[in-house]
């Protein structure tokens, strides 16, 4: 059960949800995934705005830039799941599937860590995964996010 870290960014936050980072099972070799660490923040010009962050389930990929998952243990094999960031065409998000929704000041950073057994899970089904998205009413700069996850 190898663990991986992925980080991503969204170049321009807007008033509707845009995907900063996601991880999903790909076709072919499939494994369940468990997200156990989420880190979110911004790296634009500091100002007081809110950002609404959300993690929802996705069922199909959109158009984003690939991110290579880094094994936390260098001896582990490459990840089977696919990770992407900075989406220009949103992945297919399952309605009412939000697992995490929090409003954070633009100047703040936020981290969530799961205890073993309480991770966010995604099935070993092609295209299914978890998408970290954000929106803001005032901020249009860049947002950053990171996941650590385990493949089962």
């Amino acid at each position: 059960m190898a663990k991986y870290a992925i980080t991503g960014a969204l170049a321009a936050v807007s008033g509707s949800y845009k995907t900063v980072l996601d991880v999903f099972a790909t076709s072919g070799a499939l494994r369940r995934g468990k997200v156990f660490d989420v880190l979110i923040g911004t790296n634009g010009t500091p100002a007081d705005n809110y950002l609404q962050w959300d993690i929802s389930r996705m069922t199909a990929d959109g158009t984003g830039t690939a991110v290579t998952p880094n094994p936390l243990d260098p001896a582990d094999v490459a990840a089977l799941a696919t990770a992407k960031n900075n989406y220009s065409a949103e992945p297919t998000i399952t309605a009412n599937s939000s697992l995490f929704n929090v409003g954070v000041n633009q100047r703040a950073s936020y981290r969530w860590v799961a205890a073993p057994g309480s991770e966010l899970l995604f099935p070993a089904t092609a295209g299914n995964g978890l998408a970290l998205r954000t929106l803001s009413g005032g901020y249009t700069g860049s947002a950053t996010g990171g996941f650590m996850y385990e493949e089962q």
Partner: protein
Amino acid sequence: MRRPGGYACSAEPDGRRQECDTFTCAHCNRITHVGPGQRPEDIGGLCKVCMGLICPACVGQVCVPFLKKLDWMEARARFRREI
């Protein structure tokens, strides 16, 4: 809370650090933040069937543990691939 299912911390702009425990719903996998002194009935409850903590949206619903739902999702996808 005793034996929390997770931990959230936020570094605020004024230098404060906010921290709180969380738990992950045993039925829908949603994260619930548990503020200090919150009453258990305000943040969901304990499912007496699977003995897992559940979020407010899952209170009063039939017990279907999330791991069972994952099995169903995977079985449905396998079935679709095979037909």
